């Protein structure tokens, strides 16, 4: 039962990912990406990562996707009239064939590497509470990985400042990066 659900979710995740690449309307891309994230959250849950599944839905589904939707709505890109036409002929560009070949090669290398690695014998049962218990994660994060944790907090602060600087309007109604700097 759980195995069948895994394969169902895996197929759905790949289909939704293809939807992100192929959909013409950016809104459809966002919704496909959201579907893909939910499928992945289910897979995390089935694999014994309860906390990561919750984080996946909260942070990706809740925060990042809303950010994308917000920007698309703000710039009025969901309107089919303003949707750019160049993506419609993305497969007729000269190097599109090359890109598809490289992507297929990436998949093939992944599958071959896995096949040659030999299946690791699953000697044990999955722990009852899943792998990423909050107790264990907190112990590691505030113990051995305290320095990366602090570095991440600095990264978030720097991001907050950077986003304000980038998106702020200057005095002349332009962004703080003026027209002359960009063009």
């Amino acid at each position, binding site marked *: 039962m759980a*195995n069948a659900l895994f394969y169902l979710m895996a197929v759905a995740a790949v289909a939704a990912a293809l939807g992100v690449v192929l959909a013409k309307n950016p809104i459809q891309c966002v919704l496909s990406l959201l579907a893909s994230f939910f499928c992945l959250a289910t*897979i995390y849950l089935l694999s014994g990562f309860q906390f990561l599944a919750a984080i996946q839905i909260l942070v990706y589904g809740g925060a990042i996707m809303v950010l994308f939707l917000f920007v698309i709505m703000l710039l009025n890109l969901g309107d089919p009239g303003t949707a750019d036409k160049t993506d419609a002929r993305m497969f007729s560009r000269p190097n599109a064939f090359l890109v598809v070949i490289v992507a297929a090669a990436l998949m093939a290398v*992944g599958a071959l590497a896995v096949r040659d690695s030999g299946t690791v014998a699953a000697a044990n049962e999955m722990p009852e509470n899943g792998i990423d218990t909050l107790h264990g994660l907190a112990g590691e994060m505030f113990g051995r990985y305290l320095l990366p944790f602090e570095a991440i907090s600095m990264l978030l602060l720097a991001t907050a400042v950077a986003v304000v600087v980038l998106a702020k309007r200057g005095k002349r109604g332009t962004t703080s990066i003026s027209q002359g700097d960009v063009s």
Partner: protein
Amino acid sequence: MTVPSEHLLVLAAILFAVGAAGFFLRRNVIVVLMCVELMLNAANLSFLAGSRMHTLKAGATGTSLEGPLFAIFVIVVAAVEAAVGLALVIALYRNRQTVNLEDVAELKD
């Protein structure tokens, strides 16, 4: 679930390849950013597959927590990337009224 962890790795490879193809094929900046998110998710999935593999090998006493931890760090970096990328998109749209990458190829020529 008794699916071998290798199948999780294959799924991660497929998702990464789809994301990479979208990254190179699409010209809408926002969709390109979404494809980057897709690739980061595939990386997360392979972290978790490795952790699951080690846990199933070592048993409940040796749960491998590095996978989920680094997946959390990747999620934070993905959020940061989305925030900065979308701020850049907004600045670009204000100056150029476009989100098409073919219209902003000055550095390429």
